[in-house]
């Protein structure tokens, strides 16, 4: 396809040391650290009006625990990260939409001030993740008003101050689903039911127990939504209990599809980066380096999704690796060699990072992240390579759908760097 635009060459060209795409917790944290510690010239482009990513529209508290060691509301957290990046000297630009690549580490962007071309020594992709909307989940039925995702709901309520409805069904029971319930409550909309396709609600007990008791929301487990009903406006949903096949209709005027995250991987794919079939984000090594030299990735683009502070700590990790890359002789690091792939076995859907390059660092926070499709209360992790068991360890936290499962990197200490893929599974 041709772009056909004759005016592109008139756009300004910027040449920062580092371009960060996405001003969410990962991008802002990386920008602040790079600009502050190394004095690098850092440009952050974000398509939204306000920097901060998803937390900007998440009014409730609970942000910042692991990165800032305090608990803030989403908007306060976003403002603090943006302020820190600016204070460190990073150039933050909003309403700046990166639209594609024009060369290695070179992108094109559209802003109200005109077209930009950015050529950087290193690029950090921190584009985050989104919830799958209803069409992508292939939920049949009518197509009325009132069917939302959490992201959409939060922007409508907290961003635009809009009324949503009176009675909501929330699809999903993971942390973000409870966030949707809180937002609905703030908007005066009662959540009449949460549904979870798992037999047990997948959220942390810290959410589920007060959620059930304080918020009074019933959770239908082992249940899926099989039809949306309503012309014009939602009138109800039909749900099916998986074990019995029994169906019933729940009256509501709002349906919120939560979770089921997919990374915003358009730029990653447009660059031709190797993509992991599990996360659908770019394949990275433990330095968060993608398959393209000088292009790094961090945050929920890599692991849809971990908490905001987890993404921020990714950003911190990536910043140090980018700094090392920039400091290498000749201004860029050595060519990217092969590595040992890390693969996810049962019951895991994915693992990140997916590549161990010789001499690479430990991953962020010394953990591999995995996503489980089943609840295992007492998980025994087994790490294998070429038919050899490298490690077995019982971990004191459960593996559960809807949240990231963390495995200490130390379990891989016995791996053979010239061997085949390392597989992580539960026994």
């Amino acid at each position: 396809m041709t772009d056909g635009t004759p005016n592109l060459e008139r756009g300004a060209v910027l040449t920062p040391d580092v371009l960060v795409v996405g001003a969410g917790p990962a991008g802002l944290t990386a920008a602040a650290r790079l600009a502050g510690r190394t004095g690098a010239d850092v440009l952050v482009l974000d398509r939204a009006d306000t920097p901060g990513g998803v937390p900007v529209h998440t009014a409730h508290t609970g942000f910042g625990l692991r990165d800032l060691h305090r608990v803030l509301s989403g908007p306060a957290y976003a403002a603090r990260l943006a302020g820190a990046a600016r204070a460190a000297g990073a150039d933050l630009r909003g309403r700046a939409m990166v639209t594609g690549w024009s060369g290695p580490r070179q992108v094109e962007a559209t802003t109200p001030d005109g077209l930009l071309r950015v050529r950087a020594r290193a690029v950090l992709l921190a584009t985050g993740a989104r919830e799958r909307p209803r069409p992508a989940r292939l939920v049949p039925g009518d197509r009325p008003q009132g069917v939302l995702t959490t992201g959409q709901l939060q922007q409508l309520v907290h961003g635009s101050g809009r009324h949503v409805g009176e009675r909501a069904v929330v699809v999903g029971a993971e942390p973000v689903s409870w966030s949707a319930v809180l937002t609905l409550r703030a908007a005066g909309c009662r959540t009449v039911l949460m549904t979870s396709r798992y037999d047990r609600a997948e959220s942390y007990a810290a959410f589920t127990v007060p959620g059930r008791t304080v918020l009074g929301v019933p959770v239908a487990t082992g249940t899926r939504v099989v039809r949306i009903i309503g012309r014009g406006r939602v009138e109800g949903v039909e749900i099916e209990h998986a074990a019995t096949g029994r169906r019933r209709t729940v009256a509501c005027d709002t349906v919120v599809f939560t979770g089921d995250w997919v990374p915003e991987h358009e730029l990653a794919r447009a660059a031709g980066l190797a993509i992991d079939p599990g996360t659908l984000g770019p394949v990275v090594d433990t330095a968060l380096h993608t398959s393209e030299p000088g292009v790094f990735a961090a945050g929920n683009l890599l692991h849809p999704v971990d908490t905001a502070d987890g993404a921020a700590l990714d950003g911190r990790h990536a910043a140090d690796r980018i700094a090392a890359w920039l400091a290498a002789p000749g201004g860029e690091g050595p060519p990217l060699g092969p590595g040992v792939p890390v693969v996810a076995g049962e019951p895991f859907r994915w693992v990140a990072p997916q590549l161990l390059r010789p001499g690479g660092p430990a991953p962020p926070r010394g953990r591999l992240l995995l996503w489980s499709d089943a609840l295992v209360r007492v998980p025994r992790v087994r790490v294998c390579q070429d038919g050899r068991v490298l490690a077995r360890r019982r971990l004191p936290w459960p593996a559960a759908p809807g949240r990231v499962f963390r495995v200490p990197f130390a379990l891989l200490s016995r791996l053979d760097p010239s061997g085949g893929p390392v597989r992580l599974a539960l026994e």
Partner: protein
Amino acid sequence: MTDGAGCAPLPTGSEVEADTDTDVDVAVVGAGVVGAAIARELAGHGLSVAVLEARDDIGDGTSKANTGILHTGFDAKPGTLESRLVREGCRLLTAYAAATGIPVERTGAVMAAWTEEELAALPGLREKAERNGYRRCELVGAGEVYRQVPALGPGVLGGLTVPDESLTCTWTTTLALATDALRRGARFLLRRAVIGADPGAGVTRLRTAGGDPITARWVVNAAGLGADTVDRMFGHDRFTVTPRRGELLVFDKLARPLADRIVLPVPTARGKGVLISPTVYGNVMLGPTAEDLTDRTATGTSAEGYAFLRARGERLMPSLMREEVTAAYAGLRAAADRDDYLIEASPEQRYVVVGGIRSTGLSAAMGIAEYVRALLADAGLVLAARTDLPSPPRMPNLGEAFPRPYRDAERIAADPAYGHVVCYCERVTAGEIRDACTAPLPARTLDGLRRRTRATNGRCQGFSCAAAVTDLMDRHRSGGCDASTEPGGTTR
């Protein structure tokens, strides 16, 4: 529900006028692509025209869920009116698109045969194409089919190429024709469902659900799914519309390299089959299903439809099934119980029926309009081509293969609103949303805005932008009564 006319303030030149009691030369029932084309044609011949539309926007019925393919008519039934009008309409629309900026992408099509039966049918289809006046089809072997579309699943036995099948935008086409009609003086009366017709001496009085009756010298029935109902108001009983539901899956733009041309199924005794087509918006579409219904409002999707499409898709193009689904649509085609268009004048009633315009209606619309004009002239209506025609409108481009404002430095420099991308996935700017809300036929609902700009049509379906788009729309909206009743949530 109130008539749009009660909905002040409206700008000058708006489609809705308070004075709806006026006589017109011709009342066109239905503001789909066919009704809009007819209104434009007649308004270009010195007639006063009013278009009565039951819904709250133009092109909101069968026209909106079209597959968006501009057909050559190669596979029509030779000798039929449909064959002739698709051929003429395709030629007219291609030229009109160039003049107005309606995006047309000539990707071409390949019809792929997967069974011996289908393979055996191809030579006959080529002959049929020639009898339809289309001579550029070629029979090709399986190797050539795979060369053209490498992502096709295994098992193709051969194919037939149709190099002139093209992609277009059904929404822009309807909007262009209607805007043109409006500029030529036609009026569009929305939310004015026709509920009865009282033919009298010299004029027919059309009773409407949404306001005062309209009196017209002539009535043209282009009511799509309701055409048989309107026809019966004039005392006829000559056809029945069977709504045929077609479900479509639209895949992520990242899938577009998999299908750079249309892959048609071979029609057999067992039905027309499922096609894979790029869309002019840069996505890939799989569908449609074909399910005859009785409910003329059943535009919901079904679990069976999804399962059917996914099973077909796995066979046709397995790699497409690994991509994300961006949207699922269900549209109703106005299939009639006959195998040709029904376009006839009843001069004694000063009435023309335009019925049975099924999925080829987009391609044929401008041919149908000329045909209707000729019928009216034959029936004694005095028609004179105007010499003072306004120029056709220049339409905002929604085509992915053509320049759009977000990449136009000059345009952004002149108006920074074109550099403010609001809908990220579809790269729709604040300037385009403003333009759509203040156009002569403005967007008044989020669905209307989607069809005029692509806003919220993309992979996130409003996750990131629905609130911002709604806010912008509220700011610019000129009318106000339609969408103000919505709480702002956008859905598919």
